[in-house]
């Protein structure tokens, strides 16, 4: 799996998890705030424009604004499945 595909997959997973946790409306509406992402109605990320890491950072931050540590925990456990991708830059809190 290419790194590009990894990112798509990870971002999708993240959004899907947030859809369960926060509700689909909220999760998707937040995901769409990240302008570089193209997100389907089902929460599938179909394209990333520009730097995927930046997109991941931004998306993570959007979710953390809503659900704080839970989002962080979710992301952390997801990252374990994607060794190629580094975690987000810390600096929040």
């Amino acid at each position, binding site marked *: 799996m290419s790194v590009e595909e990894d990112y798509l997959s990870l971002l999708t997973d993240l959004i899907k998890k947030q859809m369960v946790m926060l509700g*689909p*409306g909220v999760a998707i509406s937040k995901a769409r705030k990240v302008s570089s992402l193209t997100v389907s109605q089902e929460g599938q990320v179909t394209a990333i424009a520009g730097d995927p890491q930046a997109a991941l950072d931004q998306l993570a931050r959007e979710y953390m604004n*809503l659900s704080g540590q839970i989002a962080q*925990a979710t992301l952390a456990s997801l990252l374990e499945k994607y060794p190629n991708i580094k975690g987000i830059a810390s600096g929040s809190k």
Partner: protein
Amino acid sequence: MELTLGLAIITVCGTVAGIAGYFLMRRKFERELELNRKKQEELAQKAYEMAVLKEIGDRIGYSLDAQKIVEIITRSLGQLFSFSTASSMIFDGEYDKIIFECNVRETVSPQFIADVKVKMLAAFSEMLQEPLVDIDVDESVVGELVDENDKYPIASFFNLPIVISGRAVGIINVASKIPGVYESEETEVLYRIASQASQAVSKLQEVLENEKSRLSQAVESLSDGLLMVNSKYQLILANRRLSHLLGIIENPKIFDIVNALSGSFDLRTKMEEAYAREGTLPPLEVAIRDKVFQVFVSRVSDKKSGKQSLRSSSLDPSASLRADTLETAGLKPVAIVVLFHDITDAKNLERLRQDFTAMMVHELRAPLTSIKSSVAMINPADPAKMPPAVVGKYLKTIDSTSQTMLELVNDLLDVAKLEAGKFDIICDSGDIAEVISDRVEGFRPIAIEKHIEINAVIEPGLPRAWFDKVRIKQVLNNLLSNAIKYSDSGEVTVGAKKQIVNGAPIDILVSVKDTGIGIEEDQIEKLFSRFGQLESGRRNAGLKSSGLGLFITKKIVEASGGKIWVESQGAGTGSTFNFTVPFAEASHIEGTHDIKSFTTEKVAQA
């Protein structure tokens, strides 16, 4: 004609301009209006946020219940936007189950509610990062009716996770039959509220934890044993000291404690008594194993007990508030505290004192009897009738016996002064060798009588010492009299020399060595103590003494800035008593007198 055209054009232009202007203005106006409205909305939201937070803050003052937080938020939702149901799910750690409450605002079908429950459980699972299979769910539905025939499913919903102190404790769900309603900024308000509330609670919990740990540290460091039992006779708390005092394991069960107390103290009965009464029971004296305790049993009330669960009250927040006020007024006893105060030492001391007094009374009465009888023998009615030799003999007896009594009384007086803190030591610079020689000569007659040699061995050129002449004489008298008393033969040697430590002389060491009966190792400890004679049961035949001599000697030596100790190899090998006297410093020699008075709380315990 041109004028008309011109006018028409101007008019049209003007009108157009006017209209354009009007539109422009309107647009600008509208935009401002829009901004204003947005601002107003924002303000309204902020106000709403503040109101909800305040209410939460008020209630946090009463209790830190995650459940309450969730309930408050859920109930306040109605003010913000429309929904069909607002539900809360809380994880009850104590009983390992989920408490689910669904507030129905608009009639929905039971399926709707079931769906909400499923979605919430899924979200909760996700939050806890573990599946919640087979977990008990306590379900309650309040509000509008539930209609089987209602066809509307959940069209939109969102969840608010509640995290306190890093732990996911609950979820709030808002669901609606109307699709697409929860995607705007308004929902964010709630997330912010939830987050702020959670943070506030987390901080407060931290404070509470700190207080709790400080409290338990205080409880642990109590010098008394403490146990606390609730109304169901369950052990709430037992500090380490209690375990130590009762001789049971740390972290005991109520059973262990009752066992340790059985036969001496009926915990259950006393608890019931305490329940029935206000305040503390009068203290009891209880003997447990080899110790004696003063035991205090008291009832404690929990001001916050008797609270009702808010879940049973209506959706109206103000109604709940009234209920809260009522709750805090009611006091219900919830626990019994039992305190164990160790008075074993105090009791022992008391007993020793009494024994001591009894012994002293006897020690004084016996010589008095002797004296009285001696006097009677001299025939007071007509003393001339008795041969002078006989009279002389009895007079001698009277003299020596009264001398013994005098010494005893003096000792008793000294000890009384020590206890009262009125024992004065007046130090001055002097020649210790002189005092020693004087005392040795003083005891020579007695020594000769017992066929004991007595000598002084004094290092030449001893520097002047700092001591109380009268008192040090007393010390030497005591040590020399003991040395001679407890020897049948041999010699008594008094030595004085500079004591050298690490190459430098630090003070003068005086030693009184005898070749008498010696002292056993286990007796040495009690030798200098006030009740020493009583405790060690040491009463040598015919060697009457008050037993206080060495006690007083030690006090004098120490007050003069010295130390005293004894060396003996055991029974029959003699003993050497050593004590030190400080050098007289230059400042001392100038003639400053040093008066020290003894404050003696310690004397009583010696």
